[in-house]
Protein backbone atom coordinates (compact mmCIF):
# COMPACT_ATOMS: atom_id res chain seq x y z
CA UNK A 1 0.00 0.00 0.00
CA UNK A 2 1.40 3.40 -0.91
CA UNK A 3 1.32 6.73 0.81
CA UNK A 4 -0.02 9.48 -1.45
CA UNK A 5 1.43 12.95 -1.94
CA UNK A 6 -1.75 14.36 -0.45
CA UNK A 7 -1.11 12.48 2.80
CA UNK A 8 2.51 13.59 2.74
CA UNK A 9 1.39 17.20 2.42
CA UNK A 10 -0.60 16.84 5.64
CA UNK A 11 2.50 15.63 7.43
CA UNK A 12 4.63 18.39 5.90
CA UNK A 13 2.20 21.03 7.19
CA UNK A 14 2.40 19.53 10.64
CA UNK A 15 6.19 19.25 10.70
CA UNK A 16 6.59 22.86 9.64
CA UNK A 17 4.21 24.14 12.30
CA UNK A 18 1.46 25.31 9.92
CA UNK A 19 -1.33 24.47 12.36
CA UNK A 20 -4.30 25.89 10.44
CA UNK A 21 -3.13 24.39 7.17
CA UNK A 22 -2.51 21.06 8.88
CA UNK A 23 -6.05 21.01 10.32
CA UNK A 24 -7.53 21.98 6.95
CA UNK A 25 -5.67 19.20 5.16
CA UNK A 26 -6.52 16.62 7.85
CA UNK A 27 -10.22 17.42 7.36
CA UNK A 28 -9.84 16.74 3.64
CA UNK A 29 -8.67 13.17 4.28
CA UNK A 30 -11.21 10.37 3.96
CA UNK A 31 -11.94 8.77 7.36
CA UNK A 32 -10.38 5.46 6.30
CA UNK A 33 -7.35 7.26 4.91
CA UNK A 34 -6.88 9.26 8.11
CA UNK A 35 -7.09 6.14 10.26
CA UNK A 36 -4.84 4.01 8.10
CA UNK A 37 -2.38 5.73 5.75
CA UNK A 38 -2.06 9.03 7.59
CA UNK A 39 -1.81 7.27 10.97
CA UNK A 40 0.95 5.07 9.53
CA UNK A 41 2.72 8.15 8.16
CA UNK A 42 2.61 9.84 11.57
CA UNK A 43 3.88 6.62 13.17
CA UNK A 44 6.70 6.49 10.61
CA UNK A 45 7.60 10.13 11.23
CA UNK A 46 7.49 9.55 14.97
CA UNK A 47 9.90 6.61 14.66
CA UNK A 48 12.34 8.69 12.58
CA UNK A 49 12.09 11.70 14.91
CA UNK A 50 12.62 9.61 18.06
CA UNK A 51 15.59 7.77 16.54
CA UNK A 52 17.22 11.03 15.48
CA UNK A 53 16.62 12.69 18.85
CA UNK A 54 17.34 9.82 21.22
CA UNK A 55 19.85 7.58 19.45
CA UNK A 56 23.34 8.96 18.99
CA UNK A 57 26.14 6.90 17.45
CA UNK A 58 24.04 3.80 17.99
CA UNK A 59 23.68 4.56 21.71
CA UNK A 60 20.20 4.93 23.17
CA UNK A 61 19.53 7.88 25.44
CA UNK A 62 18.75 6.98 29.04
CA UNK A 63 15.32 7.22 30.62
CA UNK A 64 16.15 10.55 32.30
CA UNK A 65 16.53 12.23 28.93
CA UNK A 66 13.10 10.99 27.90
CA UNK A 67 11.51 12.15 31.18
CA UNK A 68 13.15 15.54 30.66
CA UNK A 69 11.90 15.87 27.09
CA UNK A 70 8.31 14.92 27.95
CA UNK A 71 8.36 17.35 30.88
CA UNK A 72 9.50 20.14 28.55
CA UNK A 73 6.57 19.39 26.25
CA UNK A 74 4.07 19.24 29.13
CA UNK A 75 5.38 22.40 30.78
CA UNK A 76 4.84 24.50 27.67
CA UNK A 77 1.31 25.61 28.53
CA UNK A 78 -1.15 25.27 31.44
CA UNK A 79 -3.34 22.91 29.38
CA UNK A 80 -0.59 20.55 28.30
CA UNK A 81 -0.27 18.58 31.59
CA UNK A 82 -3.91 17.61 31.15
CA UNK A 83 -3.52 16.68 27.49
CA UNK A 84 -0.37 14.57 27.75
CA UNK A 85 -0.11 11.63 30.11
CA UNK A 86 3.60 11.56 31.00
CA UNK A 87 3.76 7.78 31.42
CA UNK A 88 2.07 7.15 28.07
CA UNK A 89 4.26 9.73 26.30
CA UNK A 90 7.45 8.38 27.83
CA UNK A 91 6.47 4.79 27.06
CA UNK A 92 5.86 5.63 23.39
CA UNK A 93 9.43 6.90 23.14
CA UNK A 94 11.05 4.32 25.41
CA UNK A 95 9.40 1.47 23.51
CA UNK A 96 11.27 2.60 20.38
CA UNK A 97 14.44 2.63 22.45
CA UNK A 98 13.78 -1.01 23.34
CA UNK A 99 12.88 -0.19 26.93
CA UNK A 100 9.55 -1.72 27.82
CA UNK A 101 6.14 -1.70 26.23
CA UNK A 102 3.75 1.13 25.45
CA UNK A 103 1.37 2.00 28.29
CA UNK A 104 -2.17 0.70 27.82
CA UNK A 105 -4.34 3.27 26.04
CA UNK A 106 -6.83 3.31 23.19
CA UNK A 107 -5.57 3.86 19.64
CA UNK A 108 -6.89 7.45 19.41
CA UNK A 109 -5.15 8.46 22.59
CA UNK A 110 -1.85 6.95 21.46
CA UNK A 111 -2.19 8.66 18.09
CA UNK A 112 -2.92 12.02 19.77
CA UNK A 113 0.15 11.65 21.96
CA UNK A 114 2.29 10.74 18.94
CA UNK A 115 1.07 13.84 17.11
CA UNK A 116 1.92 16.20 19.97
CA UNK A 117 5.32 14.60 20.60
CA UNK A 118 6.11 14.61 16.88
CA UNK A 119 5.27 18.32 16.67
CA UNK A 120 7.61 18.99 19.60
CA UNK A 121 10.40 16.89 18.12
CA UNK A 122 10.01 18.57 14.73
CA UNK A 123 9.96 22.02 16.34
CA UNK A 124 13.16 21.22 18.18
CA UNK A 125 14.87 19.81 15.06
CA UNK A 126 13.91 22.89 12.97
CA UNK A 127 13.69 20.82 9.80
CA UNK A 128 13.74 22.73 6.52
CA UNK A 129 14.37 22.25 2.82
CA UNK A 130 16.48 19.17 1.98
CA UNK A 131 16.62 17.95 5.58
CA UNK A 132 12.83 18.15 5.81
CA UNK A 133 12.36 16.27 2.55
CA UNK A 134 14.87 13.59 3.61
CA UNK A 135 12.99 13.22 6.89
CA UNK A 136 9.64 12.91 5.12
CA UNK A 137 11.02 10.42 2.63
CA UNK A 138 12.32 8.24 5.47
CA UNK A 139 8.99 8.49 7.31
CA UNK A 140 7.10 7.62 4.13
CA UNK A 141 9.22 4.55 3.56
CA UNK A 142 8.64 3.31 7.14
CA UNK A 143 4.90 4.04 6.82
CA UNK A 144 4.70 1.96 3.65
CA UNK A 145 6.46 -0.90 5.45
CA UNK A 146 4.02 -0.58 8.35
CA UNK A 147 1.08 -0.83 5.96
CA UNK A 148 2.32 -3.98 4.24
Amino acid at each position, binding site marked *: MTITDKQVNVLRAQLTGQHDEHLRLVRELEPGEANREYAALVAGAFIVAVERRFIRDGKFAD*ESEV*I*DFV*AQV*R*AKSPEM*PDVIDPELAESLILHLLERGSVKEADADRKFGHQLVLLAALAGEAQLADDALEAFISEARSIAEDLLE
Partner: protein
Amino acid sequence: MDYSLVEIREENILALRAFLLEGPQAWVPLQDEMQKDDETAAGYNALLFGAFEVAVRRRFAPTYTVGEIVRLVADLRMRLGEDADVIDPLVAEDIIRRAVDAPPFKADVPNDLRAAVIAQVYILLYLVGEADFDRAGLEQFIEEATAYTEQWLAARQSEQR
Protein backbone atom coordinates in the same frame (compact mmCIF):
# COMPACT_ATOMS: atom_id res chain seq x y z
CA MET B 1 -11.01 7.56 63.03
CA ASP B 2 -11.71 9.80 66.00
CA TYR B 3 -9.72 12.98 65.38
CA SER B 4 -10.39 14.18 68.94
CA LEU B 5 -7.96 11.45 70.07
CA VAL B 6 -5.21 12.55 67.67
CA GLU B 7 -2.66 15.02 68.87
CA ILE B 8 0.85 15.95 67.90
CA ARG B 9 3.15 14.78 70.68
CA GLU B 10 6.84 15.19 71.29
CA GLU B 11 7.54 11.70 69.91
CA ASN B 12 5.83 12.64 66.64
CA ILE B 13 8.04 15.69 66.27
CA LEU B 14 11.17 13.68 67.08
CA ALA B 15 10.09 11.13 64.48
CA LEU B 16 9.58 13.82 61.85
CA ARG B 17 13.03 15.25 62.54
CA ALA B 18 14.58 11.77 62.20
CA PHE B 19 12.63 11.19 59.00
CA LEU B 20 13.84 14.43 57.46
CA LEU B 21 17.43 13.74 58.42
CA GLU B 22 17.66 10.01 57.78
CA GLY B 23 14.81 9.19 55.38
CA PRO B 24 12.03 6.58 55.63
CA GLN B 25 14.29 3.99 57.29
CA ALA B 26 14.15 6.14 60.44
CA TRP B 27 10.54 5.00 60.85
CA VAL B 28 11.24 1.27 60.70
CA PRO B 29 11.53 1.00 64.52
CA LEU B 30 8.17 2.80 64.82
CA GLN B 31 6.18 0.17 62.97
CA ASP B 32 4.86 -1.60 66.11
CA GLU B 33 3.97 1.69 67.77
CA MET B 34 2.15 2.90 64.65
CA GLN B 35 0.09 -0.29 64.46
CA LYS B 36 -1.28 0.21 67.99
CA ASP B 37 -4.34 2.05 66.70
CA ASP B 38 -5.43 4.45 63.96
CA GLU B 39 -5.12 7.50 66.16
CA THR B 40 -1.50 6.76 67.13
CA ALA B 41 -0.54 6.21 63.47
CA ALA B 42 -2.42 9.38 62.53
CA GLY B 43 -0.21 11.46 64.82
CA TYR B 44 2.83 10.49 62.80
CA ASN B 45 1.21 10.50 59.40
CA ALA B 46 -0.60 13.80 59.89
CA LEU B 47 2.67 15.50 60.80
CA LEU B 48 4.34 14.04 57.73
CA PHE B 49 1.43 15.32 55.64
CA GLY B 50 1.78 18.74 57.31
CA ALA B 51 5.50 18.82 56.52
CA PHE B 52 4.74 17.98 52.89
CA GLU B 53 2.15 20.75 52.66
CA VAL B 54 4.48 23.33 54.19
CA ALA B 55 7.43 22.29 52.02
CA VAL B 56 5.37 22.44 48.83
CA ARG B 57 3.76 25.77 49.72
CA ARG B 58 7.14 27.26 50.54
CA ARG B 59 8.57 26.00 47.24
CA PHE B 60 5.75 27.35 45.11
CA ALA B 61 5.05 30.60 46.99
CA PRO B 62 4.07 33.28 46.24
CA THR B 63 3.39 32.35 42.60
CA TYR B 64 3.84 29.28 40.47
CA THR B 65 2.89 27.81 37.11
CA VAL B 66 1.66 24.28 36.52
CA GLY B 67 4.70 23.98 34.27
CA GLU B 68 6.92 24.43 37.35
CA ILE B 69 5.03 21.60 39.07
CA VAL B 70 5.60 19.38 36.03
CA ARG B 71 9.29 20.32 36.10
CA LEU B 72 9.72 19.54 39.80
CA VAL B 73 8.21 16.06 39.47
CA ALA B 74 10.30 15.37 36.36
CA ASP B 75 13.49 16.52 38.12
CA LEU B 76 12.68 14.29 41.08
CA ARG B 77 12.09 11.29 38.79
CA MET B 78 15.27 12.01 36.83
CA ARG B 79 17.19 12.05 40.11
CA LEU B 80 15.81 8.59 40.89
CA GLY B 81 17.32 7.20 37.68
CA GLU B 82 16.25 3.60 37.11
CA ASP B 83 13.84 3.87 40.06
CA ALA B 84 11.90 6.70 38.38
CA ASP B 85 8.90 4.38 38.06
CA VAL B 86 8.46 4.45 41.83
CA ILE B 87 6.71 7.79 41.34
CA ASP B 88 3.44 8.03 39.43
CA PRO B 89 3.94 11.46 37.83
CA LEU B 90 0.25 12.34 37.55
CA VAL B 91 -0.40 11.38 41.17
CA ALA B 92 2.66 13.39 42.26
CA GLU B 93 1.59 16.48 40.29
CA ASP B 94 -1.96 16.10 41.59
CA ILE B 95 -0.97 16.14 45.28
CA ILE B 96 1.23 19.19 44.69
CA ARG B 97 -1.62 20.95 42.88
CA ARG B 98 -3.91 20.23 45.83
CA ALA B 99 -1.36 21.55 48.30
CA VAL B 100 -1.05 24.88 46.49
CA ASP B 101 -4.79 25.09 45.64
CA ALA B 102 -4.03 24.94 41.91
CA PRO B 103 -6.85 24.05 39.52
CA PRO B 104 -7.35 20.28 39.68
CA PHE B 105 -6.53 18.02 36.74
CA LYS B 106 -9.29 17.64 34.17
CA ALA B 107 -7.67 14.39 33.11
CA ASP B 108 -8.24 11.22 35.14
CA VAL B 109 -5.70 10.81 37.91
CA PRO B 110 -5.32 7.31 39.35
CA ASN B 111 -7.10 7.06 42.72
CA ASP B 112 -4.21 5.31 44.41
CA LEU B 113 -3.57 6.11 48.06
CA ARG B 114 -0.35 4.09 48.18
CA ALA B 115 1.05 5.96 45.15
CA ALA B 116 0.05 9.27 46.77
CA VAL B 117 1.84 8.43 50.04
CA ILE B 118 4.98 7.30 48.18
CA ALA B 119 4.96 10.48 46.08
CA GLN B 120 4.41 12.59 49.19
CA VAL B 121 7.43 11.06 50.93
CA TYR B 122 9.75 11.41 47.93
CA ILE B 123 8.66 14.98 47.19
CA LEU B 124 9.07 16.00 50.83
CA LEU B 125 12.59 14.57 51.03
CA TYR B 126 13.49 16.08 47.66
CA LEU B 127 12.31 19.54 48.73
CA VAL B 128 14.07 19.30 52.08
CA GLY B 129 17.26 18.32 50.26
CA GLU B 130 16.81 21.19 47.85
CA ALA B 131 16.21 23.66 50.70
CA ASP B 132 19.53 22.56 52.27
CA PHE B 133 18.46 23.69 55.75
CA ASP B 134 20.98 24.57 58.40
CA ARG B 135 20.13 23.47 61.96
CA ALA B 136 18.02 26.56 62.69
CA GLY B 137 16.30 26.38 59.33
CA LEU B 138 15.34 22.76 59.90
CA GLU B 139 13.93 23.52 63.35
CA GLN B 140 11.94 26.43 61.94
CA PHE B 141 10.56 24.18 59.22
CA ILE B 142 9.55 21.52 61.77
CA GLU B 143 7.85 24.17 63.94
CA GLU B 144 5.95 25.46 60.93
CA ALA B 145 4.94 21.92 59.92
CA THR B 146 3.79 21.20 63.49
CA ALA B 147 1.72 24.40 63.67
CA TYR B 148 0.18 23.68 60.28
CA THR B 149 -0.67 20.11 61.28
CA GLU B 150 -2.24 21.22 64.57
CA GLN B 151 -4.46 23.65 62.70
CA TRP B 152 -5.37 20.93 60.20
CA LEU B 153 -6.24 18.51 63.00
CA ALA B 154 -8.31 21.19 64.78
CA ALA B 155 -10.29 21.66 61.57
CA ARG B 156 -10.90 17.90 61.31
CA GLN B 157 -11.93 17.77 64.98
CA SER B 158 -14.43 20.60 64.55
CA GLU B 159 -15.88 18.83 61.49
CA GLN B 160 -16.54 15.74 63.62
CA ARG B 161 -18.27 17.65 66.43
